[in-house]
């Protein structure tokens, strides 16, 4: 015999479990204080950047001045990199599509940089993780040196490599910016769906640029999005990235 009391008992349990609790009295003040102190350093960083590229990809990014890219193809890549960096620094991009050209880096450094590119957006890994990943588990210090000379910071995310004890470690734009980038990535979602098209994209996909802010819904995985009737974008292919 079906126990008809069970659904009601579950409803009671859920209502009790989810009973609202009082918010801290100073919640609004805390939010406003955080908002006022939100640093303007990320947009400033973009303005300071010079970007060099070859026809194969972005080859060098530094604060300061660099020679202009030599060819039209290289200039287009440098310009595309700048656009993607602006979107990334304003929390509208969670991945880079512009290619990088690491052919000028020595073999060891190139392997370090490629391993670094495997660290997911919003995550951090210790220097020792990179060292183990490239088959030189004792070369932790050399990994740090290679990352300190990262030719294409931001796009190759050396800011996601921290010390094993949770300390920041160094960063060529300064430790403060390394922490800010970590906060930025924590506040930037990876997958967003459009409520009018029911398509889920990676944040930064060209389709997302046309999305109205009130049509934007964040998902935890492509599987979650599918379970409520969304399909993955065919342009940015979030399933392949997940």
């Amino acid at each position, binding site marked *: 015999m079906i126990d008809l009391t*069970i659904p009601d008992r579950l409803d009671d349990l859920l209502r009790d479990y989810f009973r609202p609790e009082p918010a801290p009295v100073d919640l*609004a003040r805390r939010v406003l204080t955080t908002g006022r102190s939100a640093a303007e350093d990320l947009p400033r960083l973009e303005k300071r950047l010079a970007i060099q590229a070859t026809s194969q990809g972005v080859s060098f990014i530094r604060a300061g001045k660099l020679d202009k890219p030599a060819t039209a193809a290289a200039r287009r890549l440098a310009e595309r990199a700048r656009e993607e960096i602006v979107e990334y620094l304003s929390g509208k991009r969670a991945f880079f599509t512009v290619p990088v050209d690491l052919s000028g880096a020595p073999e060891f450094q190139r392997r370090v940089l490629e391993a670094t590119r495997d660290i997911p957006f919003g995550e951090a890994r210790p220097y020792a993780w990179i060292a183990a990943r490239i088959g030189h588990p004792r070369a932790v210090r050399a990994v740090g040196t290679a990352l300190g000379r990262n030719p294409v910071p931001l796009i190759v995310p050396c800011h996601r490599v921290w010390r094993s004890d949770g300390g920041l470690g160094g960063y060529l734009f300064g430790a403060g910016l390394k922490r800010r980038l970590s906060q930025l990535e924590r506040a930037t979602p990876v997958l967003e769906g459009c409520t009018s098209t029911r398509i889920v994209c990676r944040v930064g996909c060209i389709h997302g640029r046309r999305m109205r802010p009130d049509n934007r819904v964040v998902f935890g995985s492509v599987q979650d999005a599918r379970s409520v009737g969304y399909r993955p974008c065919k342009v940015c292919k979030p399933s392949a990235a997940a």
Partner: protein
Amino acid sequence: MESDRGLMARVARGDEAAFTEVVNRYGGRLLSVAQRLLGSRADAEDAVQRALLQCYASGSSYRPQWAVSTWLYRILTNVCVDELRRRATRATHDRFPPSPGPDHHRPPGRHMDLHRALDRVPREARVLLALRYVDGLSYGELARIRGISVNTVKSQLARGKALLRAELGKRGALHD
């Protein structure tokens, strides 16, 4: 008392007093949803602060055809869902995930079974259950918050509750 929409019009102009009133009206409910989804009080407060900051910073993009609560819950669930995704990724990669700190939400004994059972409910259904039971939101409001159809809301809630019933039934937690 000033209407929610009137307050939001003032928030869009950067009126801090109006924003404070919005927080006073909705802060507790937002915090409850976040805390039940994320587990720890500290993470929940962080998520609510980030959501409210978005609300304040993008007040001008608020459209009056939205109920303010619906709009706030959309922003908050966006933040919480991404935080849950990040945790799932971290758990997959970390060999030694950090143990819960002293502030980790420990539900009272009578809720322990439900707390564990909810962990087995898929994310989307868990979010809908939290919104439904914290604020008694209608299926239509839930659909709008998560950008899904009313039928999907109903099927997700039914599926979530069926899973809970099965889990709690195993533990004998549905009987006094």
